[in-house]
């Protein structure tokens, strides 16, 4: 049946959602959880969701209408079942069904957990309903349904996002006991905070869905290889994180509260409030994002929990910092949203590609920390460079970093205080290398801050470079400026650009300056010869006229005065062409 619906409903997001629901419905009966429907109906009447229930009813009617239009009565019944069954089951079904077409399925367990955690955290933060977290599972379905329905009414895009969120939430509900307020959180987040941010990521999501399925396998392969490689490095790193944990968590909380409604807070708070299961999933996602590098540490961290928190928290920190910047805020927030919604690995890969800016930064941050733990600056730079593979922006980032790698030793020798003069990200580097203690976290934050805008603005990465090498560049530049000869040549080179009336390469301009140099040499030689021939030591106008005549510039048709009139401004013309003034005076005197 799903296949039949697909072609009909393709055009709009609403139709897409409906189609998804239909497919789910069809498959829900197969699933073991469908038996719950009766119980959930009773739940619907709970005081918490009176209006929600009404909304759900309306939605159910809508579904029925649609099915009728399609001409299938059985579907109506099924749709009713769906509403009764709660969105949780629906969402699960959707997730399961989607994988069928794709290969994403193998790790359904990990992904739902992460989603559930994310949702939980978001619920805590965003909505006052945090108290409701402890409510039994039964309620959530109603809330979820309500959230889904209103969102669908609002906007098409919002519908999609909400719907997917609901899906994820449903998964989380099935697996996680305490996720009840999710619906509220989602709704509140949608309403209150960032509609725009939601909108942007959503479209790519829908598009990406099919793509997600394809990509994951490759990622996993990379992860495995990386994991084996980096287990060793991480072992060293793991020891350190214990010290950092407090520092990392605190900043994340403060920053995140301000900016992000959704996922970030979760990570920061997760250690204190919630149980361990989320961490592994989150760490797994992180690993994916970091690709080869971070996978090792993340996997190791899964068991302890705290180290994983550290990594995640740091990454989140970066995000929070990024939020400060208007340009990047949208993309980053989109990421955060996407994380819970999507299956994680495959989705993140796509995100990386699309939103390479923020993600690359995240990766770099993680990579930097990992390398710092390894305490090998050289390896650190290499890793970062290798990581910066996907986008041009990353390449740009890699540039400054690679160059910074050279400078690192010098910086290291210098005291941190002196480092304050140097650009911030260098400081961060220094700190990382010098000391792995808590300050590194803040340093990383600064580092991120500087870097986040960089990808968006190509010029940014260059800035630190110039700042880093101020002395050399300035000396060279000053020398150029000090040399009047070069400046004069450059002046004429600019004129060349004007006359050429075409775009030029800088090399071409340099070449022009060379030509001008030769030209002036020859000119002086010629003038010398002319003056010497006339047994003079003064170069006169005649000499120049003769020169121009020999050059073919001045001919019988075109006199020198004509050229002067054509090419020189009036002030100079007055000086060169004798003209009669009042009082029968001729200036300049001949």
């Amino acid at each position, binding site marked *: 049946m799903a296949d039949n619906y697909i072609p009909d409903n393709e055009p709009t997001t609403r139709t897409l959602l409906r189609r998804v629901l239909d497919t789910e419905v069809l498959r829900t009966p197969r699933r073991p959880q469908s038996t719950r429907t009766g119980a959930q109906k009773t739940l619907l009447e709970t005081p918490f969701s009176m209006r929600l229930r009404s909304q759900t009813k309306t939605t159910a009617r809508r579904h029925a209408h649609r099915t009728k239009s399609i001409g299938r009565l059985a579907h109506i019944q099924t749709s009713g079942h769906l509403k009764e069954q709660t969105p949780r089951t629906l969402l699960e079904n959707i997730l399961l069904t989607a994988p069928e077409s794709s290969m994403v399925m193998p790790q359904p367990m990990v992904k739902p957990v992460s989603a559930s955690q994310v949702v939980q955290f978001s619920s805590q933060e965003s909505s006052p309903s945090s108290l409701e977290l402890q409510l039994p599972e039964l309620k959530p379905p109603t809330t979820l349904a309500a959230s889904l329905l209103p969102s669908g009414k609002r906007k098409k895009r919002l519908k999609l996002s909400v719907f997917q969120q609901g899906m994820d939430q449903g998964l989380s509900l099935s697996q996680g006991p305490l996720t009840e307020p999710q619906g509220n959180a989602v709704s509140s987040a949608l309403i209150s905070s960032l509609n725009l941010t939601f909108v942007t990521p959503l479209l790519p999501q829908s598009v990406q869905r099919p793509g997600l399925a394809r990509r994951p396998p490759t990622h996993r392969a990379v992860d495995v290889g990386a994991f084996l490689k980096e287990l060793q490095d991480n072992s060293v790193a793991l020891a350190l994180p214990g010290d950092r944990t407090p520092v990392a968590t605190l900043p994340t909380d403060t920053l995140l509260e301000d900016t992000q409604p959704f996922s970030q807070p979760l990570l920061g708070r997760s250690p204190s409030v919630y149980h361990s299961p989320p961490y592994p999933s989150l760490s797994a996602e992180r690993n994916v994002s970091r690709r080869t590098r971070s996978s090792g540490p993340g996997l190791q961290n899964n068991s302890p929990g705290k180290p994983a928190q550290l990594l995640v928290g740091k990454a989140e920190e970066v995000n929070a910092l990024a939020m400060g910047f208007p340009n990047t805020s949208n993309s980053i927030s989109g990421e955060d949203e996407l994380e819970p919604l999507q299956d994680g690995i495959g989705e993140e890969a796509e995100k990386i590609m699309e939103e390479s800016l923020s993600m690359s930064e995240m990766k770099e941050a993680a990579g930097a920390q990992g390398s710092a733990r390894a305490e090998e600056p050289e390896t650190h730079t290499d890793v970062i460079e290798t990581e910066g593979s996907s986008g041009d922006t990353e390449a740009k980032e890699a540039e400054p970093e690679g160059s910074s790698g050279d400078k690192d030793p010098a910086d290291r020798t210098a005291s941190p205080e002196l480092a304050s003069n140097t650009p911030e990200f260098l400081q961060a580097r220094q700190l990382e290398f010098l000391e792995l203690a808590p300050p590194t976290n803040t340093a990383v934050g600064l580092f991120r801050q500087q870097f986040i805008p960089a990808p968006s603005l190509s010029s940014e990465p260059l800035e630190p470079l110039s700042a880093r090498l101020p002395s050399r560049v300035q000396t060279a530049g000053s020398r150029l400026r000090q040399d009047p000869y070069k400046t*004069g040549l450059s002046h004429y080179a600019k004129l060349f650009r004007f006359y050429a009336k075409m775009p*030029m390469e800088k090399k071409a301009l340099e070449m*022009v300056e060379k030509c001008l140099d030769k*030209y002036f040499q020859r000119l002086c030689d010629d003038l010398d010869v002319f003056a010497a021939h006339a047994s003079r030591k003064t170069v006169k106008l005649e000499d120049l006229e003769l020169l121009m005549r020999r050059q073919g510039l001045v001919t019988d048709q075109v006199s020198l005065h004509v050229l002067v009139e054509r090419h020189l401004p009036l*002030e100079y013309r007055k000086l060169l062409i004798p003209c009669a003034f009042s009082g029968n005076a001729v200036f300049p005197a001949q």
Partner: protein
Amino acid sequence: MALSTTVSQSQRVKRKAPRGFLKRVLKRQKPHLRLETNCDLLVHLNCLLFIRRLAEEARTDACKNKCGIIKDQHVLAAAKVMLKKSRG
């Protein structure tokens, strides 16, 4: 000697001659020579014409090679021609 600047096409070009620079160039190359009054202006004019021809040559060369941007090789090819033509 007011500063004269004219807006030429899209770009604003300084039309003021770097007279000091021109004098200094000659002085540096031929310390025993001195330029007559306003001769530097003619040098400037000569230089302008040279650059103009060079630019036109380079442009035609670039167009011949179906290149939208003047590259150094085009300038080099034009310079060979123009330096030969501008022999005194």
